[in-house]
């Protein structure tokens, strides 16, 4: 059964901006990666899922409920990290988290655990915080009530590499715990490490939809090279992150997201 169903969603902002005839589903307990460059339409799609904007064409549902009409019911089991964090400047982060838990009425069972995970001491006014700190508060607010469905809009933006890793670990754990996750990103790497399936969106249109493994196979080109001796091979494998087998080392090139897009662009162009 699918938890998130988007069918024929269209939101035309003019000048070829927006989202066009987008259809995709995310299964229950599935982690779905929503990849696309800036301005591709990821946030616009997630806004529809959150019930912030009403579909002009098409429908979006979560657990069979209409995301616009039944948004308050859906929100009971939903955690959301906004693409742009803008919380109440006048509050300290502790106050904000306390307020959010009470306001939502969904509790804060995991707040302490989340704060610890991200080395966050919730002191100080939100106004004075760095982008990364605000992002962490956003993460805590999204996960603290242990929701079933997670909508994460570029959740690692502003985080340092260590915190990005911890976040990826968190998402992986949540996936194992059976949560349904839709995570948007413009980085192939982080989505590849966490998500079972990936949809690639470009200029508001879905250009690829496949399992991560299939996409990886398509876009990773392996080369096997033979070196003079095993010692050199081992050093080579280490330097180039390859797999060593005697004197043979297999290294693979990874295409950048942009290259992958261009691939899909060409394919769809050829079909026309």
């Amino acid at each position, binding site marked *: 059964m699918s938890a998130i169903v988007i069918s024929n969603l269209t939101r035309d902002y003019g000048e070829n901006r927006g989202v066009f005839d987008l259809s995709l589903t995310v299964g229950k307990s599935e982690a779905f990666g929503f990849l696309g460059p800036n301005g591709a339409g990821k946030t616009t799609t997630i806004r529809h899922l959150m019930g912030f*904007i*009403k579909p002009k064409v098409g429908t979006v549902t979560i657990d069979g409920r209409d995301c616009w009409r039944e948004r*308050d019911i859906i*929100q*009971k089991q939903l955690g959301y990290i906004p693409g*742009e964090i*803008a*919380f109440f400047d006048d509050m300290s982060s502790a106050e904000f988290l306390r307020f959010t838990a009470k*306001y939502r009425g969904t509790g804060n069972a995991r707040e302490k655990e989340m704060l610890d995970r991200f080395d966050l001491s919730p002191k100080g006014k939100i106004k004075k915080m760095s982008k990364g700190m605000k992002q962490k508060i956003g993460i805590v607010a999204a996960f603290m009530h242990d929701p079933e469905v997670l909508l994460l809009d570029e959740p690692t933006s502003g985080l340092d590499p260590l915190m990005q890793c911890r976040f990826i670990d968190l998402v992986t754990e949540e996936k194992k715990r059976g949560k349904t996750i839709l995570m948007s990103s413009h980085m192939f790497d982080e989505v590849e490490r966490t998500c079972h399936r990936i949809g690639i969106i470009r200029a508001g249109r879905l250009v690829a939809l496949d399992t991560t493994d299939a996409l990886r196979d398509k876009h990773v080109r392996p080369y096997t090279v033979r070196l003079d001796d095993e010692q050199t091979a081992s050093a080579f494998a280490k330097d180039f992150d390859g797999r060593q087998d005697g004197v043979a080392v297999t290294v693979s090139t990874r295409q950048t997201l942009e290259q992958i897009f261009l691939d899909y662009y060409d394919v769809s162009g050829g079909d026309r």
Partner: protein
Amino acid sequence: MFNFTLYKREMKKSILTLVIFAGVLTIYITMIVQMFDPEMASILNQFSEIMPGVMTAVGMSGTVTTLIGFMSSYLYGMLLLLFPMVYVVLRAHGLIGKYVDRGSIVALVSAPIKRRAIAFTQMKALASGLFLLVSYITLLEIVCSEVVFPGELEIGSILLLNVGLLCLQLFIGGICFLASCVFNDAKYSVGIGAGVPALMYVIQMLANIGGSVENARYATFFTLFDPDGLIAGETAAIAGIVVLFVGACALFVAAIVVFSKKDLHI
């Protein structure tokens, strides 16, 4: 339909602003009540005979020989219209428009709370703050009068007068709140929310001067609030504040509906 946690937060913010407004009003109201002096009142009456335009423009007309008539002229012509109005404009913006403009409304709408309930709670916070402010004004007027001129003030009339003031300010609040719910950009929500009442007030001032622009008073809702009429207990004046109250309710309902149905690009 109502979220107490949000209400508490907003009332806390309102109280801070209210304290400042109450402080300034305390100074003015006590000063003006003390200024009442039947003899002095007749001097002012003469003054307004010499320069009728200036005095009536700021609403200072009518009989100033009774304490309540004096208060009606010197407080309800301008001061008590403008001060609470500034409060209402500021708070109405702070309760919806500012959140939408800055995007922090996301913290309120990404929760299992109906939009209707959010807007209703904010409206209630606006109305409660206003109620507190007008109640304070009423209490202050009564206490001041009783201390300085015991038994001089007609309590029934001052209560009715302030019920009228509350209706008028609620109506202004309705305009600001609706503007806040319609526009996403603070430029427009504040511009319309503050601009319309301010423009109406200017028209009212012009109409007060009389002459060829007198008919302009039919173009402003301030006409519906007639302090002297309320003191005299005129039916037309009471009808006026009923219209203001019903209008305020209609504006708030419209605002809540708009907010519930609007797209939030946040």
